[in-house]
């Protein structure tokens, strides 16, 4: 019973949040996704952190660059569909040799309900890799924290772009009360 309660309390978002704090990633830009709900709430409720709500995901590439120019660490969290909005923009921090860390929760991948999510879901990894972003897919909840930590370290220490792709298998497919 106690073990079951502990398992229910453990959540990959807590691991990612802890790794963010450990690395002083204090600004997180986002267009939210259902899979990010818990993490975004944690960020919003932390007085040392700043959640920046965007109007479109590519703005995050500019904000991340500006933060780095001012000596601060920032990142972008989004749903897989948002990756499509970022492709040209991803060249901008890269040209400045600025780190750009993305946390992407996947749709269109594992039991997807919405046909409009399919094509971008399939394109996320090849599209990101085509513009030079290192991808770190992860489909086990208990490996997300360490994967995020590794991606953050390579992004900030080697000043490159890196994306953690959290599988829809972890998030679960939205059902919309399917009939």
């Amino acid at each position, binding site marked *: 019973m106690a073990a079951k309660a502990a398992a229910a309390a453990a959540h990959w978002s807590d691991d990612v949040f802890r790794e963010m704090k450990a690395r002083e990633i204090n600004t997180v830009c986002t267009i939210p996704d259902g899979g990010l709900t818990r993490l975004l709430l944690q960020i919003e409720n932390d007085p040392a952190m700043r959640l920046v709500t965007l109007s479109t995901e590519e703005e995050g590439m500019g904000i991340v660059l500006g933060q780095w120019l*001012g000596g601060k660490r920032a990142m972008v969290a989004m749903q897989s569909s948002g990756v499509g909005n970022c492709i040209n923009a991803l060249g*901008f921090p890269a040209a400045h*040799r600025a780190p750009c860390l993305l946390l992407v929760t996947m749709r269109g991948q594992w039991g997807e309900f919405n046909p409009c999510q399919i094509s971008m879901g399939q394109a996320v990894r090849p599209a990101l890799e085509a513009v030079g972003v290192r991808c770190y897919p992860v489909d086990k909840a208990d490996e997300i924290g360490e994967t995020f930590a590794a991606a953050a370290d390579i992004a900030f220490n080697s000043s490159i772009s890196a994306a953690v792709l959290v599988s829809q298998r972890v998030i679960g497919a939205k059902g919309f009360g399917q009939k």
Partner: protein
Amino acid sequence: MSKTPKTAAPASNKLQRRPFVADILKHRGNGLVVTGLGSPTWDLSAAGDRPDNLYSWGGMGLAIPTALGLAMAEPDHRVLAMTGDGEMMMGIGSLAVVADQAPKNLAILVLDNEHFSETGKQKGLTGNRVDLCAVAKGFGIRETMLVTEDSQKDELGRFLFQAQGPIFAVAKIAITEDPWRLPEKDSAAIARRFKISLGLEKP
């Protein structure tokens, strides 16, 4: 329903961008300047090279987000984003993000010639119905200023570098043929020099 008026008379696009920008920047002090790609970058370069100029060679739509990220990271510096009307339109939603974050040290200047002057002077979106100052106000930017006369430039310079942000100005500039004044082209070198000037990297 009343007809939406034009934002400025057609003859109002008479400001000469190069001397105009140079005069505005006399108010700069230790302010940091981030430009949008194309002509605003050449204007900044022509006004005098400085290590705290962040010239842009790409990322259309990202001038304001970049300046916003910088303004939030460097609250003790004034940050000016200076861009063109086409670049501003591409990143227009970023004005909502600016208003929402409300950095007191961020100013935005749009050099508006109502055309895409870098690509062959095609007509843009700001020459007819679109009122950028009204858009900025609608997003919640504190204060805006529309500049059509050369005599307003000192007032504009003080506004951009002294008034509490976030603030937004539009200068109706003429379509002119200015010589290219290309700065350093390697964005990594521009960024490194910029960070050294802020004391954030070792020379």
